[in-house]
């Protein structure tokens, strides 16, 4: 059964708040939106990219994430949960979390946490992709949903994730602790973690 909650999102172009809906799990219309609304402008933008720095600045590194494939493979699984943010009739953000992970920071080493596998905002909401992003707060809304899940599961808000290079600064700004490059990760991405205290501070600040 699909569950939903409503939250306000700021439409930066009108300056007014709109009611967004957070759903779990992701549904077909969400992956349809990714393929038909998110990917075409990202692919068009990619064609204009000249070098790696420009690619990173344009925030396109998740362009080929396989949301549909993962949605199908992970349905009816207890170890995965997915979330979608819808606003203005379109999907504004998507997230997959793994509900069984273990912490790496010394202060909470080996305690269970929620691991964010994939988290993404629609390209038109990204500062790097456009000079005039539409909705503000999609990323924090999804991050907050992961923290709420962690709290509800008795994991005290603990979260872990590997960040794409384009997103590392954003996670630093959210107050996550950076544990350096994870050489065991297939793409050698930087690993970040929220301690319980960090997560509480984050929720208090948003």
């Amino acid at each position, binding site marked *: *059964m699909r*569950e939903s909650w409503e939250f306000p999102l700021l439409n930066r172009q009108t300056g007014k708040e709109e009611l967004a809906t957070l759903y779990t799990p992701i549904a077909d219309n969400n992956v349809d939106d990714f393929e038909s609304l998110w990917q075409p402008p990202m692919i068009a933008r990619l064609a204009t990219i000249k070098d790696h720095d420009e690619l990173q600045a344009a925030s396109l590194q998740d362009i080929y994430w396989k949301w549909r494939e993962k949605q199908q493979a992970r349905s009816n*699984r*207890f*170890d995965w949960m997915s979330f979608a943010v819808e606003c203005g009739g379109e999907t504004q953000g998507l997230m997959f979390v*793994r*509900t*069984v992970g273990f912490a790496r920071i010394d202060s909470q080493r*080996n*305690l*269970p946490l929620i691991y964010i596998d994939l988290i993404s905002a629609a390209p038109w909401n990204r500062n790097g992709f456009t000079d005039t992003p539409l909705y503000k707060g999609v990323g924090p809304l999804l991050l907050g949903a992961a923290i709420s899940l962690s709290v*509800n*599961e*008795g*994991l*005290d808000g603990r979260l872990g994730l590997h960040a794409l290079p384009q997103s590392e600064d954003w996670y630093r700004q959210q107050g996550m602790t950076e544990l350096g490059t994870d050489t065991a990760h297939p793409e050698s991405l930087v690993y970040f973690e929220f301690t319980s205290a960090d997560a509480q501070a984050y929720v208090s600040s948003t």
Partner: protein
Amino acid sequence: MAAKRTMTLNLSDQEMVMLEHLAEEKGLSKTQLVRQALRLYQSVVDRLERGDKLYVEDSKKAEKAELMVL
């Protein structure tokens, strides 16, 4: 939140001690620990059913050993 159902779990004294120990160590209730264990087990079973093998690695020796799962 999804609706919850209640069941009686029959465990030996040793199993109950282990459940209580792990729950305390991980900062979870016994129900939350069983839920986590179920998720982890489903994750392992899924990988094995896809033909994957499960390994554990000795972090000091960098040695890998296949984990036998029934």
